[in-house]
């Protein structure tokens, strides 16, 4: 997902997305409830084993887990100070295992598969919620991440080229305006492709 999908043919890749989504939820809740260090240790081992089975390169995993380390840098000393080192260590362990599990999901599951899963999950409610529409919304949101990133980069470049500095607002306005234009154009192309229903 989010362009981080890492193609493969392992069991982890081929497992139905809906099953993976279910196991992911159970796993994250389970890790959150773990009270004993040995339970967390076992969970960490299990997740590591899944990574080996999926044959996802270490670099790709690192890219997903690294951002959380910044959070820990602030949270761990605080927790240690307030609640002691054991609690802080457990919290760190829980967070890392949960994020790694989520990363495994994103690295081995295509957006199409996730959409399909959404459709299945929402099927009992189809009288009230159009699962296909929700799926489309999710896909478009994901698609917009690199798009907006590109716009921000363009606007920053354009500012630099003109030697302009200035407030955050001066950056935000063109980014928002261009994002809206892009969203409009994408919407139009969806209509043209007959995918607007």
């Amino acid at each position, binding site marked *: *997902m*989010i*362009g981080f*999908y890492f*193609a493969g043919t392992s069991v982890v890749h081929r497992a139905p997305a809906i099953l993976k989504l279910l196991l992911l939820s159970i796993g994250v809740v389970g890790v959150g409830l773990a009270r004993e260090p040995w339970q967390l240790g076992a969970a960490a081992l299990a997740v590591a084993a899944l990574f080996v089975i999926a044959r996802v390169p270490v670099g790709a995993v690192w890219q997903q887990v690294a951002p959380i380390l910044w959070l820990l840098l602030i949270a761990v000393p605080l927790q240690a100070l307030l609640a002691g080192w054991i609690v802080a260590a457990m919290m760190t362990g829980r967070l890392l295992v949960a994020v790694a599990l989520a990363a495994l999901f994103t690295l081995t599951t*295509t*957006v*199409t598969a996730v959409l399909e899963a959404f459709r299945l999950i929402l099927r009992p409610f189809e009288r009230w919620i159009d699962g*296909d529409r929700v799926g489309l919304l999710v*896909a*478009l949101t*994901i*698609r917009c991440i*690199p*798009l907006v990133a*590109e716009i921000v980069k363009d606007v920053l470049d354009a500012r630099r080229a003109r030697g302009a500095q200035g407030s955050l607002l001066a950056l935000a306005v063109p980014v928002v305006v261009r994002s809206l234009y*892009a969203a409009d*154009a*994408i919407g*139009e*192309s*969806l*209509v*043209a*492709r*007959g*995918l607007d*229903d």
Partner: protein
Amino acid sequence: MSRIVFDGVSHSFGERRVLADVDLVLSERRIGIIGANGSGKSTLARMINGLVAPDTGRVTVDDADVARKAKEIRRKVGFIFTNPDNQIVMPTVQEDVAFSLRRRGLAPAEIALRTAAALERFGLAAHAEHPAHRLSGGQKQLLALAAVLVGEPQIIVADEPTTLLDARNAREIAGLFREMTQQVIVVTHQLELLEDFDRVIVIDEGRVVADDAPSVALDAYRGLLA
């Protein structure tokens, strides 16, 4: 070939009159539309796919009114935009092409098969699993073409499909248009793309001012610009 008819079509955006009483019957296989900036070409092209509805007059494709049967028409008429970035809706190349086939009631295996064939045809098979936004501009436009053609439209309307591409990529896209068996209608400022077309229409200030074989129409347009 299909028969696309503009019958007394006029259109204004606010005060500005963009198309004025256009009558056209388009049934040739390859038709070019040229004209100065702001002359109304894009508006005209969009009407064939129902993206713009005329204020007065009618646009029909094989006798079906575009304004009334937009859904049906859009399966028949594929549209290629200038900026391929705005046409990509899914994160990976293969998913974007497959996306065109959703709600067609096809089995997943059939979708996979058709998607793979389209990617192969446009030289994108090696990029199937790659993030679409990392492709080059030329490859993105190829992806846009693949995503439209996988739906097997009978007519392709393209609004300046090569404007953002370098000369080599523009030639490649033009070559693909040449090979297509579908009816194609291309709006462009790159006049050399149209030399072997069947018909070229020149628009100026919302009116058809020339409509002829390429050599004649292109000369008329060059005269207009001089």
